[in-house]
């Protein structure tokens, strides 16, 4: 080899070694963009697509914003509704008035005081169609909002709404200052949450600083939290192994296994409210016939889908995943795969020769979608049900889903702590997602109305058990399983509580030791 070639290789090697020897990455990061002492760095695959809480649906945006903004009510670690900016609330005897007493001495990040004027302004704006707030439908029972004094907000309702306190707890119901505008908040968030925005480098990082005026009894532990954008989940694992990132949440079981394999990262798995489902559109083609839908239901072994597509990481589930209202999957028709029963249902539908169902599948929206679809197709083929898969890019999938342009859809849907919030919008005839759900019935309308009108927890549980049973007996959709999220932490990280709704609200109790 001539000297030139040796020189080239030597130069490259020398450059690498020189730079490597100057590296400071073996311990906590100290270079530009590095966290302040004892600050927490959270690895995320994307930065928020908006900083305006009323329009945030992206997972990363919600996780950042819930640390910046406060809501009237909150969820605790077990998803019970607890006081937030409202210290207490009371429902009138006829259920048509909800009176909330606001916490005193709360200030926004800009130092201005929070009072009932801000709460009324926020709720009025969320209900205004021109705002295009995503939680508008959650306030459909609210006729008007009054602020009789600075510490009181009164919601006048069209009828009883037991789900309302839970609906007020999402970041899409964040309380904003009446002096702020969407344009201003998009660049300068101004909330009452445990942290304030310190710095944002688009597409790279967003850093929050502890809000020393936060109203909570316990002040946030970490002085700063940096959400550092590392687009590839495997690269986040590498960043944790080298000590640059201390906490991350993964959805892909394979990535979680990789992270755990190194021995320096602890991974905790948390069952999720979100559920994997084969949505059926009971208003199209052969699926109009309940017997065809039941045949699909009986032809599927859910455990097999879970094992093959998600490494067995999850639990077979019925419709309702919220812990307080959980459905029992063993009570559904055909809790175990029963091909004879499936054939019987197809016979009743006059389709003994088989049927074809076209299903849309998203590629890239979540890790297991295509594997689930392929397993479902294989299982259904044995029952003479041809599941024709249409694998779509996530944008195309959303387009078709939003337009309800499908016979069936393999989907991962978000669940909520209150079953009315989860399913009222899908399966009531006037629900804003009923077109997508493809199924409603007078019985369901009645049950959901009763569920909203009842505040007694045991009575509500019984009602939503009936809702679950009705949905499964009519095979409105085929509920498959609920997965886990995986919270990965490095040594020294303490106090973080993962939640079933995927919330990172307990970053405020997290310290880096």
């Amino acid at each position, binding site marked *: 080899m001539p000297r*030139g070639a040796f020189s080239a*290789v030597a130069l490259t090697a020398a450059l690498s070694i020189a730079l490597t020897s100057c590296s400071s990455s073996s311990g906590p990061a100290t270079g530009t963009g590095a966290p302040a002492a004892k600050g927490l760095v959270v690895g995320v695959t994307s930065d928020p697509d908006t900083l305006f809480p009323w329009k945030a649906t992206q997972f990363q945006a919600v996780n950042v914003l819930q640390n910046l903004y406060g809501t009237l009510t909150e969820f605790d670690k077990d998803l019970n509704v607890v006081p937030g900016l409202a210290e207490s609330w009371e429902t009138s005897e006829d259920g048509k008035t909800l009176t909330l007493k606001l916490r005193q001495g709360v200030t926004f990040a800009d130092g201005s005081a929070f009072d009932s004027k801000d709460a009324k302004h926020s709720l009025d704006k969320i209900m205004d169609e021109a705002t295009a707030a995503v939680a508008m439908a959650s306030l459909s029972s609210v006729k008007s909002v009054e602020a009789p004094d600075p510490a009181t907000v009164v919601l006048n309702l069209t009828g009883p709404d037991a789900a309302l306190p839970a609906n007020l707890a999402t970041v899409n119901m964040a309380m904003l200052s009446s002096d702020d505008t969407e344009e201003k908040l998009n660049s300068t968030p101004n909330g009452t949450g445990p942290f304030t925005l310190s710095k944002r480098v688009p597409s790279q990082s967003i850093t929050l600083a502890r809000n020393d005026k936060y109203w909570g009894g316990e002040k946030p532990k970490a002085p700063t939290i940096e959400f550092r954008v590392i687009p590839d989940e495997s690269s986040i694992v590498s*960043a944790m192994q080298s000590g640059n990132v201390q906490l991350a949440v993964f959805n892909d079981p394979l990535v979680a296994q990789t992270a755990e394999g190194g021995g320096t990262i602890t991974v905790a798995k948390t069952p999720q409210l979100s559920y994997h489902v084969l949505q059926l559109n009971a208003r199209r083609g052969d699926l109009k016939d309940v017997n065809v839908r039941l045949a699909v239901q009986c032809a599927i072994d859910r455990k097999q889908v879970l094992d093959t597509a998600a490494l067995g990481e999850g639990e077979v589930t019925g419709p309702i995943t919220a812990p307080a209202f959980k459905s029992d999957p063993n009570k559904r028709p055909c809790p175990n795969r029963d091909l004879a029963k499936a054939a019987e249902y197809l016979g009743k539908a006059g389709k003994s020769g088989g049927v074809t169902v076209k299903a849309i599948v998203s590629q890239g929206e979540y890790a297991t979608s295509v594997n689930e679809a392929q397993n479902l197709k294989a299982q259904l083929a044995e029952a003479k049900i041809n599941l024709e898969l249409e694998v779509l890019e996530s944008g*195309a999938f959303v387009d078709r889903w939003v337009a309800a342009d499908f016979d069936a859809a393999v989907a991962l849907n978000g669940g909520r702590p209150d079953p009315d919030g989860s399913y009222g919008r899908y399966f009531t005839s006037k629900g804003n997602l009923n077109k997508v759900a493809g199924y409603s019935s007078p019985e369901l309308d009645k049950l959901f109305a009763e569920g909203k009108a009842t505040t007694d927890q045991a009575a509500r549980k019984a009602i939503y058990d009936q809702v679950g049973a009705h949905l499964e007996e009519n095979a409105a959709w085929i509920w498959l399983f609920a997965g886990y999220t995986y919270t990965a932490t490095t040594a020294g990280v303490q106090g973080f509580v993962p939640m079933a709704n995927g919330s990172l609200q307990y970053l405020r109790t997290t310290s880096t030791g």
Partner: protein
Amino acid sequence: MRAVVRNRVVRRVAGTLGTLFGVAVFVFVMLRAIPGDQITAGLGTEAAALTPAQRAALEHYYGLDQPLVTQFFSWLGNMFTGNFGYSARNQQSVLDLTVQSLPVTFELAVLSIVLALLIGVPLGMVSASKAGAPRDAVGQAVSLAGLSIPAFLLATTLLSISAASFGFNPNGQGFATLLEDPLLNLQQMVLPALVLGFGIAAPILRTTRAAVLEVRSHDFVRTARAKGVPERRLQVRHVLGNALVPIVTMTGLQFGYLLGGAVVVEQIFSVPGIGRQVLLGIQQKEYAVVQSTVLVIALAFVLVNLLTDVLYRIIDPRVRAS
């Protein structure tokens, strides 16, 4: 003579503008052909819950309620005034975003090309020095590996090994620009430049080998050797010097390609380059971001081609003469 030159320049400029306009139309149409818009990209399946009035309010907010022709010429007209559009997601103008990301990609491209040349040209010459010999086989094997090992595989493997085994992962820190922290910046560029450089070294190696073999068969090489020109000088000055045109062509092409952003490598190593900017723009259906950035990339590609042409004139007197 002057008129001929002027004519050439005018034709070249007109051709460039025509190309850029074609790119602008193509990108504009393709983006609208992709299902979904900024509303569904932002809200996901929650977009199904929008009332018609809410949807109309959002379409107005994003400017989607304008006719397509108005959208196109409004964007193109604004480009001429230096207004590249606005990214609602980043709360920054596209110009500002591009000013931040283009130098990052440019730096990565330069480092990758330098590494590729350092690997590809010497190995190509070594291969060509005795075609069919074991050294040639080694060169061909390196080139085959460069062409066939996917960048994502090499990148992920390098990153995992360096982080897990050596605790070396500067890319896990926040990105530092060359001006902010040159040392950290170079550390963060080493691995991505190696991955890209290795991939690009392969075609450069093959081109060098073929060009050198071709030049070595010419009479002037035999004459020079007969006249006693030292072998090293003969190989570098006479052979490599005359083989440079195809190598420069290949290098220019690869450099232009790199300026378009090496999306996968930028993603894996968290390098905030122009490729990532386009990818995020496409994911979020931020039309202005994608359209303007792609036009900037196209312009950069055209400029690199122009520079390559100029280089031909410098390194080859025959081009100058023609």
